[in-house]
């Protein structure tokens, strides 16, 4: 491996790390819903892409709406879709059967995907990007302005989200419901309200993640829903189900490794290594990155 290869390898890691912030946001959404309800919402990534599409639809009457407005609209749409997902896929499904909600969210994933396809005929749509023309060059090394923006925005969302979770009454209520649902009900916390708000907040986060994915590529396509669902789940497992710091770190790691394996082994083997990493975590650290090592005989 010569110097140029080393630079390319470092460049791949940097690109992947920046794009990984999208995975981190998706991972947070998956993990928070699991943390609060102990259920997996498989429609989360599709809803995120749906929210990004929704932002285009919402602003279709305005020619060339600024990207910031589009991002805010995506968050708004994400919140609305999140609430809808809760009421359709969770609220009326029997709590005693965890598989029922899993299957209902699979159905919602397909439904959201098909709604997008039927609305757009499956045709990719251009999505506005901020700083898409900005490239920071350091010799052979370069950093994309739009990806840096995505990264900074992702980090800002994560910080805001952690503040919301640890510094507000809603955050305390969410954590209380997550840890002791019956005790929190006895303390006067409305489980329904917390659940709805959790779906709305994670939906908004997902909307931003969907918008960030669209901005990073410059286009939106229904093709994005399936790979982002898989990546979101991988990040959630590697980060540890229910662990928000784990989801953030895992998102960045998966993004970086995906890009590095693409560089080292090519597109046909890239996903193989990510899946092997997932299995390694499931076997050796099933609790995720920040879990204590399991005791073994």
């Amino acid at each position, binding site marked *: 491996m010569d110097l*140029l290869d080393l630079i*390319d390898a470092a*460049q*791949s890691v940097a*690109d*992947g790390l920046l*794009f990984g912030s999208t995975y981190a946001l998706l991972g947070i959404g998956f993990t928070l819903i699991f943390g609060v309800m102990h259920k997996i919402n498989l429609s989360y990534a599709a809803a995120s892409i749906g929210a990004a599409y929704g932002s285009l639809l919402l602003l279709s009457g305005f020619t060339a709406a600024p990207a910031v407005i589009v991002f805010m609209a995506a968050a708004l749409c994400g919140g609305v879709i999140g609430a809808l997902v809760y009421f359709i896929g969770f609220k009326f499904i029997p709590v005693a059967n965890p598989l029922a909600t899993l299957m209902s969210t699979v159905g919602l994933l397909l439904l959201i995907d*098909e709604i997008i*396809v*039927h609305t757009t*005929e*499956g*045709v*990719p*749509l*251009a999505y506005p990007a901020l700083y*898409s023309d900005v*490239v920071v060059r350091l010799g052979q090394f*370069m950093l*994309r302005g739009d990806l840096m923006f995505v990264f900074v925005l992702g980090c800002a969302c994560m910080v805001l989200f952690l503040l919301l979770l640890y510094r507000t009454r809603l955050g305390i209520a969410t954590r209380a419901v997550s840890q002791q649902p019956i005790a929190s009900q006895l303390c006067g916390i409305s489980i329904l309200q917390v659940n709805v708000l959790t779906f709305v907040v994670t939906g908004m986060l997902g909307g931003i993640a969907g918008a960030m*994915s669209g901005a*990073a*590529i*410059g*286009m939106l*396509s*229904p*093709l*994005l829903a*399936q*790979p982002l669902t898989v990546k979101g789940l991988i990040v959630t497992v590697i980060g540890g189900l229910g662990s928000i710091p784990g989801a953030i770190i895992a998102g960045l790691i998966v993004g970086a490794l*995906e*890009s590095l394996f*693409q*560089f080292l082994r*090519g*597109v*046909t083997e890239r996903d193989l290594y990510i899946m092997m990493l997932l299995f390694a975590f499931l076997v050796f650290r099933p609790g995720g990155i920040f879990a204590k090592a399991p005791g073994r005989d």
Partner: protein
Amino acid sequence: MRTVSVAAAALLAGMMTSVSGGALAQERTVKITGFGAKSGVVRVFGVNSEAAMKAAAEEINKAGGVTLGDDAKAKLSVEFLDDRCNAEEGISVIRRIASSDAFVAVGPTCSNVAESLFGILQKKVGDASDSGLQFPVFADVAAKGGLAAISEWAFRNVPSELEMYKSLFAWLKREHPNLKTIYGGVEKDFAHSNATYGVMKKQAEENGFQLLGTGEWLLNDTNFSTQVREMRRANPEIVAISAHPFTTCGVLREMDRQGVKPKLLIGLTSSSSIETLQGCAKQAEGIIIPTSFAPVTAEAKTAAENVSKQGGSMDLHSAAAYEIMFILKDVIESQKIMAKPDTVQADRNKMRQGLAALKETKGLLGTVGRTNDREAIKPYLYVYAKDGSWQVLHKPSS
């Protein structure tokens, strides 16, 4: 007097019967069933094919419809079924169509579906030992080379990508003798892109271009920085991308960011569509793509407008569906197809014979030749992206 009255009544009754018989004949309808992807990410292909078939049917009906074997006039109607670009669904759809009164079906969209469903058709006509379906299928979109050879009941009106890229690279060699090096890019997990890249690569090398490398990605990839960095390092004069609009645009944008500016860009036939221009018109500026449709003749322009009115858009794929409807009209008339419930299998045999006997058909860009293995030899031209639209660059036949 009484005799005269009876005769007059009989004459009147006869006339009324004749009139109502004529009215009934005018009301006959022949349903042509199309099928293809109308859900999933390739839905647009099905939508466009259906619109093209309906536009053609409307035009045929306006001109008086089709004359059946019993000299009755019939209107054409179109039904379009969804196979979801899935082989199992495709087989199920074709079995459903074959169990109806239909004597031909138009489709499918995807090559993987065509390959599987042509496989369940009878291989050789008249082979009693082969229990395969005896039902003619006329493909409009499925582009993978040589598929009609699978069964004598399979027909295609699909352009030959081999011929188009063979001609394109020979033309490039003539027109741009100073260009020597080429770099390829391919959507590795899509049958059409992958097969066409094989064609592009072979034709480039046969015409003396030096292949510097190939970047590979997947249909739903979102990050192309690694592939484009390798491309930038190779510094090619020509870049040939065999991918559909979503990833073509992703790669072109990444090339723009990394400052990769080849002297010439070549694209996949399927990317000569409005989606590419909607997604990345600026980055796609100048890309050359061979295609078997462009609204360059008065007939093609009218057809494109009619398809647009039906909610679709005309491209090389939907143009094939449009042409097929006119071919079917001609065969129905020449083979004297009856289109009655009790003549279904006979009509299917006649339709197959009629299609197999065709040596040439009329296309929107000119005469389309037919080969012995039931494929089309379609006229084509090269288009290039200019100021957000597709412009004709060269007509090889002219």
